[in-house]
């Protein structure tokens, strides 16, 4: 999968931008605040219809304009498709080859993108919400139905929380059952994804670390017995809700469910968070991203596009070399943002295009 052309109009500070990226490494350089990450965000948006910065529609439009436009030409298995995305205050509209797409599922797989940014490097140390967000994004990228299930769950959760805050709780049992049902759907898919990538993660970690250290990744449900998941998910969630009823009434918030769960990163049988060095943590996240890319490559028979946002300072020489080697081998199209070409380690990479991003303008450097 490859992005051959991209054009933007009134997207954040990028008034009018057109570029033709190369098939392999594309370097976007310039000072901070010039629009590099905005460009990366636009590519991500074209693939997922979502902003990885969790931005609202109105934030994506240049101030004072009624809409933003992102258009890309994507080549997949020798076929070119044009994806056009219009962002308006009220919503997003997408057209593929001039045809309007009504359901996100019909759009799915048109452009697969994976983003790798310092936020994810911080995942090893951060709170459960960061890992949950990562997990949901990763599951969705390989499973079109997941987004719908995720929205359903969020809606049930909001309704249930609203009811918990009322004096009259009539119907709470119904919302609990719906929460358990919708929650199990999410948990089953999350666990399924983690099981699929664990082997790949282990493999990539070994090749990065070059020693016999063993890693793992496991779903860690909040207050539920993980051994009985996902098979008995509905029962477990209902039991959990019953157990926490008093707490829920006090806090007015649903106490168990996938919105509270976490993912555990494991090194040699112990929690990565407490027992690993900074270097080991970085190797772990790097291996995890490689596993995610490889998982998508297998699923779609073609590698996704990788967006490396501001990663030059996050990876040392050795890990950077590992990543570049992996990307070269897998023939992945990559977009890299950096503030300085000197800091970028492109050891042995000759096939690249460089673009200067300055004050909302993008120009290719020869």
């Amino acid at each position, binding site marked *: 999968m490859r992005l051959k052309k991209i054009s933007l109009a009134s997207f954040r500070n990028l008034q009018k931008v057109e570029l033709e990226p190369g098939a392999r490494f594309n370097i976007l350089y310039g000072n901070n605040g010039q629009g590099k990450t905005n460009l990366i965000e636009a590519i991500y948006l074209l693939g997922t219809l979502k902003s990885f910065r969790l931005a609202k529609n109105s934030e994506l439009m240049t101030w004072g304009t009624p809409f933003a436009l992102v258009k890309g030409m994507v080549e997949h298995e020798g076929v070119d498709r044009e994806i056009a995305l219009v962002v308006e205050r*009220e919503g997003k509209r997408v057209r593929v080859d001039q045809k309007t797409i009504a*359901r996100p599922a019909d759009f799915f797989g048109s452009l697969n993108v994976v983003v790798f940014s310092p936020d994810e490097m911080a995942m090893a140390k951060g709170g459960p919400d960061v890992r949950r967000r990562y997990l949901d994004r990763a599951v969705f990228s390989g499973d079109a139905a997941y987004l*719908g299930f995720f929205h*359903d769950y969020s*809606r*049930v959760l*909001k*309704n*249930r929380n*609203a*009811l918990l805050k*009322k004096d*009259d709780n*009539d*119907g709470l*049992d*119904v*919302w609990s*059952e*719906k929460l358990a049902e*919708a929650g199990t759907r999410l948990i089953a898919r999350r666990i399924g994804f983690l099981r699929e990538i664990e082997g790949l993660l282990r493999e990539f970690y070994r090749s990065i670390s070059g020693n016999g250290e063993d890693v793992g990744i496991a779903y860690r449900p909040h207050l539920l017995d993980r051994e009985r998941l996902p098979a008995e998910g509905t029962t477990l969630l209902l039991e959990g809700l019953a157990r926490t009823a008093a707490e829920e009434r006090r806090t007015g918030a649903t106490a168990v469910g996938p919105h509270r769960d976490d993912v555990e990163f494991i090194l040699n049988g112990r929690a990565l968070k407490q027992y690993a060095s900074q270097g080991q943590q970085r190797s772990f996240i790097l291996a995890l991203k490689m596993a995610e890319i490889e998982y998508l490559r297998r699923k779609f028979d073609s590698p996704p596009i990788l967006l490396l946002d501001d990663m030059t300072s996050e990876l040392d020489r050795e890990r950077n070399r590992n990543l570049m080697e992996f990307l070269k081998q897998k023939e992945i199209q990559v977009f890299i943002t950096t503030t300085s070409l000197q800091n970028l380690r492109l050891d042995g990479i000759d096939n690249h295009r460089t673009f200067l991003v300055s004050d909302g303008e993008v120009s290719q450097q020869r």
Partner: protein
Amino acid sequence: MVHNSRSLTKLVGELKKLPGVGEKTALRLAFHLMKSPANVSALAESLLEVRARVRFCSTCFGITENDPCSICTGDRDSSAICVVEESQDLLAIERSGAFHGRYHVLQGALSPLNGVTPAQLRISELMRRIEAGGVREVVLATNFSVEGEATALYLTKLLKPLGIRVTRLAHGIPLGGDLEYIDAATVQRAMEGRSEL
């Protein structure tokens, strides 16, 4: 004053309150209306007429000009009641010709998030109709949205203990789809494929 005309601004403001109408559409509609005075009076008349004559049926809570409505008084199978969220849903099922029983319009779906709890819906009225006897089957045709599904489950819990057959339309309908927008064939298939709860 956005449009140099107080009355035009007011009209656009009123139009914008309608579902699915934003600023742009409201403006377009307003200008269109201004250009065709004949249509304007006809539209204004029918709006007032609808307001004066259309009410909710005191039995099924569907819209009607005569209370009770023709479906409630007509020669229909009174042993089956089809429960829908809104009158539009009733009309969609009627258009399909797939159902020969009577209806009950809940006038909404459970949504604590929007302040809708069982007390705000026409649920107690439904229960009174069933307690009056003669109803053997209740078909739950609420939407397949999160709220519609929760409403169906809530009603199932109330109705099952009464020994009534409770069925739900089958998922022949696009997920998250509102009944109102679905063509007759789809509703027919869904009605045939309804399942016991």
